[in-house]
C-alpha cells in the first residue's frame, strides 16, 4: 500500500487551487508532475556544480559529468539493461523512435520489406515508420484491435512472415489503457527474424519493466511522464544493434576523430548523443528514477490498478458515460470516455472550471479513434499521487456538467 498522503506532499503543485477549487490533476499520461526531490536535484546542480560535461578537466565539469553519467547508470538498472552502453539519452520517446527509424531503419529496411505496427499506436510510433517506408518503398502493416480494445493476437501469425523486418508496438495504450503482452509478441517477431521495438512511454513510468525479461531489441520512453523533467528521454537498444548502427545526428561529442572529409565515431552510448546534452534534465531523470525506485514500481502499479478500478466503477454508473477499452484488470492508469453527446472540449473545459485537469481530443492516436468510430474522447489518467477521492470529484463534476448542458 502506498502512503499517498505522504507522496502528495512531495508534489507542491498538488496544493494549488484552480478556479477556486483544489486541483485534481488527471493528465499524467500526457506529462506527470514533479516531486521536490527532482526539483532539488536540478536546482542543486545549477547552484553548485553546473558546467558542460565530458572533456572538462576542472572540478565543476567533472562533478557534472559524474552526476550526468550516474543518471545513465540509474536508468540502466531501472529497466535492467545489461550495460550502461545500451542507454542512449534523447529528448523524448518520439526522438528515440525516430533515432531507430533514421539509423537502424536506413540500413535494414528496403523495398518490399514490411514494418508491423498496431492499430492502437501513438502517432510517434506511426509517422517515423511512414517516413521510412515512403523513402525505402517498404510497407506498413497493422495488427488490428478487437472491439474490446485488446490487440487481436489471433491475427499475429498471419501477419508475421519473413517480409516483416520490424515489429513496433506500445506496451500500454495511451487511450485504451490496454496492457500489451510484450513477451509473446517479441518472441513471435524473433521467430521470423524481425526486430522488436517497444514504445514504453506509458508503461515505464507505471509498472516494473525489465528489458532482459521482455527480450525486446529497443525500448523508448520519456523522462517527463515519470516524474522527471521535459527534454530528456531514453532509447534502450541491444548493444550489438547499437554498435552496427550508423550515428543519428552529427556534431560534437559523438565523434572520436574528425578529418576534413570524414570522421570516426565515439563509443556507445555517446555515438548517438551529438552536441551538449540535456545535462541537468538527465540528472533530474536520475533523481526521478531514485524516487520511483524507493517507492517501488510494483506498489505504484498496484495503487493505480486500485484507483482505476474504483474510478471505472464510479464513472460507468453515470448515465450516458461510455468508457473505451478493456476492464480495469487489463489496463494501466488511463480511462478514456465519451459522455452523453457532450463534445470532449466542452467537457474538459467545464471540468477545468471545477479544478479538474483532463485531456480532450484524439490523444495523438487518430487511426485508433477512427477505428473506434470516434473523433475525440476525454481522458482521465492516474498516477501514484492520485486518490479514489479524486475519482469521486471527477464523477461528481461530471454529474454537474450533465445538469448544466443537459443535452
Amino acid at each position, binding site marked *: 500500500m502506498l502512503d499517498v498522503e505522504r507522496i502528495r506532499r512531495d508534489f507542491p503543485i498538488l496544493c494549488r487551487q484552480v478556479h477556486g477549487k483544489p486541483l485534481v490533476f488527471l493528465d499524467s499520461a500526457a506529462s506527470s508532475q514533479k516531486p521536490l526531490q527532482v526539483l532539488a536535484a536540478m536546482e542543486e546542480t545549477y547552484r553548485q556544480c553546473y558546467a558542460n560535461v565530458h572533456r572538462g578537466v576542472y572540478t565543476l565539469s567533472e562533478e557534472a559529468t559524474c552526476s550526468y553519467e550516474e543518471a545513465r547508470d540509474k536508468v540502466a538498472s531501472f529497466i535492467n539493461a545489461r550495460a550502461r552502453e545500451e542507454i542512449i539519452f534523447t529528448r523524448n520517446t518520439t526522438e528515440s523512435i525516430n533515432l531507430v527509424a533514421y539509423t537502424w531503419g536506413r540500413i535494414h529496411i528496403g523495398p518490399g520489406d514490411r514494418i508491423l505496427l498496431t492499430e492502437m499506436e501513438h502517432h510517434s510510433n506511426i509517422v517515423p515508420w511512414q517516413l521510412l517506408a515512403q523513402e525505402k518503398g517498404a510497407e506498413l502493416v497493422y495488427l488490428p484491435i478487437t472491439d474490446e480494445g485488446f490487440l487481436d493476437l489471433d491475427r499475429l501469425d498471419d501477419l508475421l512472415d519473413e517480409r516483416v523486418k520490424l515489429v513496433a508496438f506500445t506496451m500500454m495504450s495511451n487511450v485504451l489503457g490496454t496492457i500489451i503482452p510484450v513477451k509473446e509478441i517479441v518472441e513471435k517477431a524473433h521467430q521470423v527474424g524481425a526486430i522488436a521495438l517497444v514504445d514504453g512511454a506509458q508503461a515505464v513510468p507505471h509498472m516494473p519493466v525489465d528489458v532482459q525479461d521482455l527480450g525486446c531489441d529497443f525500448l523508448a520512453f520519456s523522462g517527463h511522464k515519470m516524474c522527471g523533467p521535459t527534454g530528456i528521454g531514453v532509447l534502450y537498444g541491444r548493444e550489438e544493434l547499437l554498435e552496427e548502427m550508423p550515428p543519428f545526428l552529427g556534431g560534437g561529442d559523438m565523434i572520436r576523430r574528425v578529418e576534413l572529409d570524414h570522421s570516426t565515431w565515439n563509443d556507445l552510448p555517446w555515438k548517438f548523443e551529438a552536441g551538449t546534452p540535456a545535462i541537468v534534465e538527465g540528472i533530474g531523470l536520475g533523481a526521478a528514477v531514485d524516487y520511483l525506485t524507493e517507492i517501488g514500481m510494483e506498489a505504484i502499479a498496484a495503487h493505480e490498478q486500485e484507483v482505476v478500478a474504483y474510478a471505472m466503477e464510479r464513472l460507468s454508473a453515470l448515465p450516458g458515460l461510455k468508457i473505451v477499452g478493456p476492464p480495469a484488470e487489463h489496463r494501466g492508469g488511463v480511462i478514456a470516455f465519451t459522455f452523453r453527446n*457532450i*463534445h*470532449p*472540449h*466542452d467537457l474538459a*473545459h*467545464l471540468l477545468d*472550471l*471545477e479544478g479538474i485537469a483532463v485531456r*480532450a*481530443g*484524439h490523444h495523438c492516436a*487518430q487511426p485508433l479513434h477512427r477505428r473506434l468510430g470516434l*473523433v*475525440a474522447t476525454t481522458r482521465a489518467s492516474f498516477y501514484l499521487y492520485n486518490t479514489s477521492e479524486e475519482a469521486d470529484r471527477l464523477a461528481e463534476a461530471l454529474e*454537474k*456538467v450533465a445538469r*448544466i*448542458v*443537459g*443535452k
Partner: protein
Amino acid sequence: MSDLYKEHILDHYANPRNWGRLDSPDIAADADDPSCGDQVHLEIDLDSDGRVAQVAFEGEGCIISMASTSLFTEYIKGKTIAELEAISEEDVLRVLDAPVGSGRRRCALTPLRALQAGLRKYRRRAQGDD
C-alpha cells in the same frame, strides 16, 4: 459553472438557428478541424442587391463552435459582400458575447473560417465569369 456556457450559448447550441440547407446557394463552404472534429457547412443566398437574404448551416462540434455559428448566421443577414469581407475575428467574438480564452478561440471562430472559404470561392467564380 461558467460565464462561457451562458444561457444564450446553451440555447443556440440546443436550438441552432438557420439549421439546414438552401436549394442553390450563391456561397457555400466548409470549415473543419480534424483535431477536435468540429465541422461546419455554411450556405448563403444573396438578393438582387447583393445582400445576404438567407443563411443556412449544418455541422457537428462543441458547444462553442455550434453556438457561435448559430449566432453568426443571425448576425450576417442583410450584409453586403463588402460587409461580409470586413468581418473580423473580434466581431465574431463580440457577437458570441462570452469570454472565450485562447484555448477555445479557434472553436468560436469556426463560422468565420467557413465564411472566408466561401468568399474565396465566390470571388474566384466571379473573376472566372468576367
